[in-house]
């Protein structure tokens, strides 16, 4: 088997809490992505899904303690020299962020920000050529009137157009991997669908690997080859997309699926009771135990190991059996 594009092993991140003690925000995460594949990383806020990606790009605030391994094309990113990781950021790995309004610099034109992305990695390109390339990228992401649009400022774009521009910027250097962190969360539902379609089409056309980070299982259902569900700083269930939806093993995943609205659905949406744990006050044992209907004594004592259950792998003492599985949409 060929080497994966991205291979994360036992990634751990700690932050120093208000009282000075270190708390683990990421507690040993394994993820991998084949070249050209799509991985959906799903979880509520605070599950650690974003910081996992920001960590190996070295974009976390100073003071985070990182251990483990993250190999990109076989090259270890953790502990990589800043000058080398800068060459990879934006060139080999592109990023799309949640809120495209705050992610663009408000006082610079969109075109100049895209031109910058190009020129940071190739000084031989002139400003004018880079702006021309920005226009071509705008065409690629279906922004009308590209020549006029590149000269506009972020506030002159609508939310959807801004996110298209963000995608154009991530694509600027034809990366091998794009990390999209909640790319549709800040958008209207109708615009969400357009952006998702655009992202799916472009990555297929260009053969780019995609890590899609989201709290919404519905967003990744149609696009991801594989899904990893995160909770409390760990991957709690992982597998190909279909089994994760139809042969769900972890009660938390089942809860997330129950919270996704469907066209045929008639009953009320089910919600998962309670709130996700803070990294500073994580419960003993399985971190999902306070919110889990199936929790028993062992769940309060021991953190369940990650193991294969049917067609997916999950970390649960009492995974859902076939008869108990939630029938997906």
């Amino acid at each position, binding site marked *: 088997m060929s080497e994966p594009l991205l291979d994360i092993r036992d990634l751990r991140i700690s932050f120093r809490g208000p009282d000075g003690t270190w708390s683990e925000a990421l507690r040993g995460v394994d993820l991998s992505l084949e070249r050209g594949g799509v991985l959906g990383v799903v979880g509520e806020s605070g599950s650690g899904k974003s910081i996992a990606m920001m960590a190996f790009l070295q974009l976390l605030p100073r003071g985070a303690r990182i251990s483990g391994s993250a190999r990109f094309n076989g090259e270890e990113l953790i502990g990589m020299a800043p000058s080398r990781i*800068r060459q990879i950021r934006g060139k080999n790995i592109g990023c799309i962020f949640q809120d495209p309004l705050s992610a663009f*610099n408000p006082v610079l034109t969109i075109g100049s920000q895209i031109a910058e992305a190009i020129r940071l990695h190739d000084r031989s390109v002139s400003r004018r050529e880079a702006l021309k390339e920005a226009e071509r990228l705008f065409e690629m992401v279906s922004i009308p009137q590209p020549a006029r649009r590149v000269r506009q400022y972020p*506030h002159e774009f609508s939310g959807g157009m801004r996110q298209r521009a963000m995608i154009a910027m991530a694509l600027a250097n034809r990366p091998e991997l794009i990390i999209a962190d909640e790319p549709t969360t800040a958008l209207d539902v109708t615009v969400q669908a357009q952006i998702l379609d655009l992202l799916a089409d472009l990555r297929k056309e260009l053969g780019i690997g995609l890590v899609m980070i989201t709290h919404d299982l519905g967003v990744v259902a149609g696009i991801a080859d594989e899904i990893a569900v995160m909770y409390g700083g760990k991957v709690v269930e992982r597998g190909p997309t279909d089994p994760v939806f139809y042969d769900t093993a972890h009660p938390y995943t089942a809860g997330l699926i129950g919270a996704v609205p469907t066209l045929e659905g008639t009953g009320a949406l089910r919600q998962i009771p309670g709130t996700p744990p803070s990294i500073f006050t994580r419960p003993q044992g399985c971190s999902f135990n306070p919110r889990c209907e199936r929790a028993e004594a062992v769940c309060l004592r021991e953190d369940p190991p990650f193991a294969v259950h049917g067609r997916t792998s999950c970390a649960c003492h009492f995974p859902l059996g076939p008869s108990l599985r939630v029938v997906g949409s």
Partner: protein
Amino acid sequence: MLAYIVRRLISIPFLLLGVASVSFLLSQMTKGDPLAALVPERMMSNPEIVEAVKAEWGLDKPLPVRYVRYLGNLIQGDLGTSFSTRRPVATDIAERLPATLELVIAAMIIGTALGLCLGLLSARFRGSAFDSLARIFALIGSSLPIFWSGLILLYLLSVRIALVPGTGRLPPRVQPPPTHTGLYTIDALIAGDISLFWQALAHLALPAFVLGWAVTGIITRLVRSSLIEGLGQDYARTARAKGAPERVVLIGHALPNAMIPLLTILGFTFAYLITGAVLTEAIFSWPGIGSYAVRAAASLDYPAIGGVTIVGSVAFLLANLLTDIAYAWANPRIKVH
């Protein structure tokens, strides 16, 4: 944009009439007697002389008459005659304002350049020894009273080691250059007199540094905190995700955003210093508007007080307008109508 500027300019004379009225009425309400400046003390007992002087200066008329006359003259550009210099206030101001402008412009250039450099380096190397040193330097500049720092520096640099010349705008008995702008350095250059230019610049250096140092403090702190705030914004993370080194994130992304609050402060500081450079002017015998204002206030010289008030107001109104224009230029989200 142009229509906006014109509209703002048109409003200025009306605002000035308001300012003049308030300053006139307030100075009439003070307890002191302006006659003290006009009549020698030993003649105060002679009612004929007092009445004659009152009549000569129009002080015998009731307040409303004087008020209307004052405003009427003002509209024609006549600020009245100073009680103490016995010359038209407008002439006094025209003579003294360029000196202040030269001092304040030089101080603003020094303060802004120094503040920007220190702020940038402090933000880049925050928490380092340099950051602490820059903060101390800035803190000293803004907290040391100018009459102290000015005197000490004058003593050390001029009296002890003669690095810079003493007080005044030029050495004694040196003729100033022919007046074009009233700024000696510029006028000397226009006249093509390079040695005079260096002399004027050397005299300007120390007072401008003392005043600029006080400004440096504010600017350094503002630039540093705006830049550090910018470095924590989402757009800075985006820039890093594009592969930008920290230097580019700082200068290319955080700095343009920091210009927005900086321009506001610069405009107001400049306007404030036009009448607020009194201490520097006094210590360095700089014949500017600030020292004129102090003398006018001390002797209840109403026309001079009114004149200085109007100059100060014009400075604020213009600085405000320029700030708004610069603001719209620095911040594309602002549109002026």
